[in-house]
């Protein structure tokens, strides 16, 4: 049996599975014997947007997506700095950067998130202005730290995978260190950085569920408060709904990242 045929059959089977799964889900929704889906349906706007009628947006899964995007923005900037510091030739730059990276990568996300809650002050004075740091802001910072460390590692791996001949030829053409990075190395490393970056984003989007410990009104918090008032039988239905929310958001991103990664595999740069 050839590989191509087998892969094709696997794909068909996967689609069949998906179809059957959707059918079962639809069937249980249409029959809805215990009325559990109706309960979920009534609470769905709340879980998605944090308000009963879907507007205004004050939390729910929308907030998870927002936390994810904001954290990713911070983590990208921090990770880029940290990654370039790790690659620096100067020891006094690279050694501390590596230590910070290892520390942040080996610490559990949840513990880092908690630490940020207590490390960051409640009130900050900057340029004469008073800022209050909300739990939401602290959650975003807390989630961005481990992501930044992981991103730094992605950058380091990608830059190291660029063929060393590129360095030598660029140097022989008289480019400066910074120019080599900017014009020669980073554009080539980008092919590897982008899939890694997307994978990280998928991981971060999943981890936004942890923000529940900061008391932010995101989907897990709302789910837990909702379940306190709902009947016990509907519990599983609610959980399945929220799990599916995360799955539907993260799986396509992870899939796309894998496709891009497979494209860069084996290309000798």
């Amino acid at each position: 049996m050839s590989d191509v045929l087998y892969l094709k059959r696997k794909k068909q089977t996967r689609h069949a599975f998906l179809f059957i799964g959707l059918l079962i889900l639809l069937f249980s929704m249409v029959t809805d014997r215990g009325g559990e889906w109706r309960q979920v349906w009534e609470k769905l706007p709340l879980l998605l947007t944090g308000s009963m009628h879907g507007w205004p947006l004050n939390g729910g899964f929308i907030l998870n997506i927002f936390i994810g995007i904001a954290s990713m923005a911070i983590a990208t900037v921090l990770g880029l700095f940290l990654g370039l510091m790790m690659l620096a030739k100067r020891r006094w730059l690279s050694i501390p950067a590596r230590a910070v990276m290892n520390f942040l990568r080996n610490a559990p996300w949840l513990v880092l998130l908690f630490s940020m809650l207590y490390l960051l002050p409640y009130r900050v004075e900057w340029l004469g202005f008073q800022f209050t740091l909300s739990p939401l802001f602290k959650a975003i910072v807390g989630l961005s730290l481990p992501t930044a460390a992981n991103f730094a590692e992605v950058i380091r791996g990608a830059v190291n995978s660029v063929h060393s001949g590129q360095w030598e030829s660029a140097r022989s053409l008289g480019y400066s260190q910074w120019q080599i990075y900017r014009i020669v190395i980073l554009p080539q490393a980008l092919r590897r950085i982008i899939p890694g970056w997307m994978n990280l984003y998928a991981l971060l989007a999943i981890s936004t569920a942890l923000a529940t410990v900061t008391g932010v009104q995101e989907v897990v918090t709302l789910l837990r408060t909702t379940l306190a008032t709902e009947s016990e039988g509907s519990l599983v239905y609610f959980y399945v709904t929220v799990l599916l929310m995360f799955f539907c958001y993260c799986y396509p991103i992870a899939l796309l990242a894998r496709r891009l990664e497979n494209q860069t595999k084996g290309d000798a740069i």
Partner: protein
Amino acid sequence: MFGLDFSWLLDPTYQQWLLQGVLQTLELAALSSAFAIVIGLLGAFCLTFRLAWLDASIELFVELFRNTPPLLQMLFFYFTLTQIGFTTEDPVTGLQVPLISAFMSATVSLSLFGGALCIEAFRSGFDAVPKATLEAARSLGYTRWGLFRHVQVPIASRICLPPLTNVLTNLFKTTSQASVITVPELMYAAGQIYNDTFRTLEVMLLILVIYVVLVSLVVWLIGWVQRALAYPGYGA
């Protein structure tokens, strides 16, 4: 020292709590890692059958567990497993308590989560076993199980130790989320201590350091295994 006050560390009560937390974390991590590796191997073995429906279901399992928050998985298992209704009589109080404890649900949940990650890691390792070696073994008359046990596992396990390190450290870090479902591990102990002393910052810093040390130990341990098992020419 930087205006931090660690005097509470001298209190034997807190030392006791911390120690118990560390032990519980290690127990949870060890159990779930062991089960995860078993699940990973089972999944990898099932993939050698090359049955489309089996592969598709394994893939579904992996993707479901990889693309949903472990925290939610844990809450889900905690509430469903303790609700199933198996209850025993507590010999001390005579009350009906759920047979499946929070610790057990956390173990089940983490094992499945880790198992999904392990299957993925092992699959990459098994794919990297040279085809010629497999054909040679088949021509020598190895059965499917014999081939798996004597050829594929020895070679693939060495190739996939680096990704397995990632998986197991990830799993170790995820155990901290069991504190949300009241498993008295390290993170939970931390919460208990700062509720008592109000020294949140110091406690969190200490816990961070403990976790980093423990995870580094795990990394070192797997590295040691890797060096001990190294075949020249297979794996890094």
